[in-house]
């Protein structure tokens, strides 16, 4: 792969392009050549990460010593997509695009909880 342009774009988009794939070209010739590409490109980075979790709970006193709690938990409440780094395989049709979620993230999930305290 060789660099033939500026990979930085003004409006990187996790649903679209994170950098300019046309700035790179695949070299079919697999003979050895000295690397000239830089290790990183200023202004080219992966998508960010945002997440909001929220709990709502209500306690009911059953007796002097016993309480009943109902709780609703929301994970990734805003259902924000946190993308993994874009594809950096110049031969892939998705080169420059985010093709999967960041590891350890998920869409919004709700969890219900009942608990007795004594």
């Amino acid at each position, binding site marked *: 792969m060789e660099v033939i342009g500026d990979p930085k774009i003004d409006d990187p988009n996790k649903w679209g392009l994170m950098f300019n794939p046309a700035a790179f070209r695949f070299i079919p010739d697999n003979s050895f050549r000295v690397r000239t590409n830089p290790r990183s490109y200023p202004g080219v980075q992966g998508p960010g990460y945002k997440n909001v979790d929220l709990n709502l709970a209500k306690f009911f006193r059953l007796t002097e010593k016993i309480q009943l709690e109902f709780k609703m938990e929301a994970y990734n409440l805003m259902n924000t997509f946190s993308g993994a780094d874009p594809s950096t395989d110049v*031969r892939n049709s998705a080169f420059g695009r985010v093709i999967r979620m960041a590891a*350890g993230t998920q869409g919004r*999930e*709700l969890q219900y909880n009942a608990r007795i305290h004594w």
Partner: protein
Amino acid sequence: MIRNAPIIARNPFTLALLNPAVVSRYTAQKNPFFMWAASSVEVGGAQNVTGDVLVDGMPVMLGPKSSYAPTMDNTTEVTVQQNSVDAEYGHSSGGVLNVSMKSGTNELHGTAYYFGRHPKLNAVSDPTTRVGNLVRNHIWGGTAGHAWKKNRIFNFFAYEQWRQQDPRTEQRRMMTALEKGGDFSQSRNSGGGLRTIYDPWTSRLVGGRALRDPFQGNLIPRSRLDPGALKFLGEMWDPHRPGTDITGRDNFAAGFTRGLRYHNISNRTDFLFTDSLRSFFRFSRFRTALYEVNWAPNQSRIFNNANGGAMNALNVSGDLVWTINPRTVLNFRSNYTSWGRSAMRTAPGRAIARPSAAPTSSPSVAGAATSPRCTPWPMRFWEVGPPAPSTGITPATGSASARWRSSATPRSTIPTSGA
């Protein structure tokens, strides 16, 4: 406070991320039974899996992985130390995470709880594939703390159990129908050229160079296909989409659920012999079984069950604190910790091999079976109260064993019975 925080993984070690000096290096595996979870953080700039992880002040790290993790309802405090230069601590290039577990009190206190998730309440799990969120879980448990003898002997018991269905996706590059018939005339390599198939019977030395010829038209004659290979090919399922590049990469994708069975049990007894001499003894363990369904559309017998398995951990610890005088405290701690895992299960009802069923001799095991067990026996520090420095000594023994299948055994899963 911990009990009220939204913690999706229900692993107390994940609370370390509330510290701004802690950077997540988690993969999707954050639950307490994934032993990588506790150590996959960077603390104060040090690399992940190089810090120490403690439960009740005693180390539970075995190599780069942790072992036992308490339940959330059994946790009273989580601490993060960025650079522990105190002689009390070791086994770390920087960060130390410690989870302290609860003790009983004179009065009976406890909880009983249930957590649930249902697919109809969830958004899609992955918007890039639009795979529906199939998480279905049931978590229940309870705790109870009380005194066996008032002001002297206290007990705290905790139990938690999980029944979960977890969404998963897999991609594969499957052979096309033409390729399975020996026709590679349409198969392309990553550079766009023909994916040439050479005839091994034409290999020869010419002038010191090894040469071989491609099959005519990139077609392997039917007569050259081995009967054993044809049976193997018959078990391979077909792609259902074009793939993400010219080679057909990821031309098959599957969404499925993985079943999980987990329980965590712990009991701690505290002894208050005198106002200056106290001790505790604790037994804790968890057992986990992951069942991965055979997601091949043809229920292929060569399905490679790489993600099922068992993950177990045990931690037995004791602690003795003697406050000799206001400036001198003597503390002995000792613990035994171990973990074991194997990767050999499919869905309930389709189990093809179980860890308890002689994993090294079963003909139907996918991949390797490992059962490392390590046994550190730290006997911890003498501490002379501040501002004097403390000293520490940590004799430890360790052992590990791993059983690997013979390389001659194919990585395939051929059921030996209908079980």
